[in-house]
């Protein structure tokens, strides 16, 4: 049992574009560009960013759905970035993922029982009877009655589908669960139920979550540490409290200031940065320097483009990658 359940070192995932008749590489998308962090057992990590930030790619690379281009991924003391075949399959039991869109993450042709017991089937765990019992147990964990066993996804509501998704992820007793926007497509009242359920399950089953989302209020309430990503790069990393109370990177400040709020008291807690209009360029730019330069309200100038980016510990346990602090 190691203290750090997950450790990611200098992880890179690039997608190489092939163009032309001969298929020669002519462009690269740096979806994840040099990301490092550690996660302590039981302390949830929030990965925050907008679409195109690479947060989903990061989650999928950690899950080995993609092969990393470079870097290391350590899961409970085992380096998994280069595993293949049987070794990789064994490791998959320790980490599972809950996907973003509940509707498309469940096979419409299968019923709930079949979906939940699929992991057991694939890894050859238990007899048919035992698997059925386990399916009932899992449904119980996600607060669905046994009646749901033979339903098809088409007859489930969004919240119910997501619960089935969670049940499936828990079938093999993983240590780490990657949650990719688990509540983004759900209604507000259902969102609360799912998040409460996840919190209960964490306590009960001793899980560690990696929560990928663009919804800052969810991150605030669920995670202990947060990393902020922009165009594949890590721009800020610290405890969730620090990131929210004292955002240091201009992008984090922009993100927080864009949040519409309900209660007046919340307004006081947000920074007042001024975001620029969207001219989001794609990541095929091979330009050096800070990717936020075009939209940054606090850019310094030449230095932002010329300085090599690195994460600097600006305050205690609070890392930022910004020329302002170099």
């Amino acid at each position, binding site marked *: 049992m190691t203290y750090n359940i997950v450790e990611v070192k200098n992880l890179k995932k690039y997608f190489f574009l092939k163009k032309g008749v001969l298929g020669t590489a002519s462009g690269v998308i740096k979806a994840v560009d040099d990301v490092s962090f550690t996660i302590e057992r039981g302390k949830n990590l929030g990965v925050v960013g907008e679409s195109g930030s690479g947060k989903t790619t990061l989650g999928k690379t950690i899950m080995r759905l993609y092969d990393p281009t470079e870097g290391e991924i350590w899961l409970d003391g085992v380096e998994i970035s280069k595993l293949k075949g049987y070794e990789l399959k064994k490791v998959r039991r320790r980490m599972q993922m809950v996907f973003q869109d509940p509707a498309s993450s469940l096979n419409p042709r299968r019923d709930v029982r079949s979906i939940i017991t699929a992991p057991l089937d694939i890894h050859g765990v238990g007899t048919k009877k035992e698997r059925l019992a386990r399916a009932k147990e899992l449904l119980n964990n996600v607060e669905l009655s046994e009646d749901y066993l033979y339903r098809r996804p088409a007859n489930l509501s969004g919240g119910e589908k997501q619960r089935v998704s969670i049940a499936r992820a828990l079938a093999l007793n993983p240590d780490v669960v990657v949650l990719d926007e688990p509540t983004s497509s759900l209604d507000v*009242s259902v969102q609360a139920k799912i998040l409460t359920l996840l919190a209960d399950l964490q306590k009960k089953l001793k899980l560690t979550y990696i929560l990928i989302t663009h919804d800052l209020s969810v991150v605030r309430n669920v995670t202990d540490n947060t990393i902020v990503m922009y165009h594949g790069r890590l721009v800020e990393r610290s405890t969730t409290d620090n990131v929210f109370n004292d955002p240091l990177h201009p992008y984090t400040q922009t993100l927080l200031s864009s949040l519409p709020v309900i209660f007046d008291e919340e307004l006081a807690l947000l920074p007042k940065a001024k*975001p620029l209009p969207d001219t989001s360029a794609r990541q095929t730019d091979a330009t050096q320097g800070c990717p936020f330069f075009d939209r940054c309200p606090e850019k310094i100038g030449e230095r932002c483009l010329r300085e090599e980016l690195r994460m600097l510990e600006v305050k205690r346990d609070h890392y930022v990658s910004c020329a302002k602090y170099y």
Partner: protein
Amino acid sequence: MPEMSTDVDGPLLDVRNLKIHIKSFEGLAEIIDDVCFNLNKKEVIALVGETGCGKSLTAKAILGVLPSNAEVVGGEVLYKGVDLLKLSEHDWRSYRGKELSMIPQNPMVSLNPLLTVGEQLMDLICLQDQPEIALLPYYIRRKKLKKEKKAYDKAIKILEDVALKPAERVMRSYPFQISGGMAQRVCIAMALLGNPSLLVADEPGTSLDVTISKVILDLLEQKIRDLGLSVIFITHNLAVARRISQRILVMYAGNVVEVCDSDKIFAEPLHPYTIGLKKAIPTLIQKEMISIRGRVPSYINPPRGCRFNTRCDRVMDICKLEKPKLVNLEGNHLVACHLYNRR
């Protein structure tokens, strides 16, 4: 075309007792059940509710674009005195796009992928003055549009109005070549083309990133102010509703359950559903999220009485028998709940 009233004081839009059913193979879904609200001139109201509560359907009824299996069983939608539900398709031509207009939910899907942005805009502009253009086949139309200089200039101006620069490049682009934020602006431009008085915004910005949707909302706010529009803003995001509207209407299962000014409703919500919503939202200040128990009732055999009675913490016997009416408590705060209905 029916005569519109010139009553300056009345509301611009008056929806009375709207009832809509949808035919499905499982039976008759009584979705919209006695919806009443009105919209005053130069007012922005937010129609707030969760998936399936009927807010989009209500908007579609107002614009006359209900799906074929929907049936309006009762009620009126009075726009400047004219009942929109009774208009023929021919009459609608003078209303849709001109008096009433809509911003769709997903801009990328709402633009024609086969035409450039410029062609679509110019198409609409020409349609305003020369409706016969719509009858020409696709290829002839494209050729004809190329020659319309006035339409081109107007389109450029409209795009610059929604802060899309350089406008010429956007005009030449196909929808897949522009980003979601830009497409949303194009849709806004299209909606404002005909100088409408009433705008229905169907969850704009939900498919966009939060920083970009903030910019879009800023733009919308500015346009609404400048043009003096009356807007029905549909959303499930309470924070956005609070920001953009003066009044919020909370819908649940096909009924309007609470109406109040935006800055007051979350301070003192009255209807148990609104109270439940307030407790369930994750915010930056309250750490605990308490969900509403139960689930949305089926529309095929809706519960008798108040449709929230299966989930309400303070349900009483009368709630299961009689449907509460929307009642005006002090200060323009309306609630449909027996708790406040002691008359």
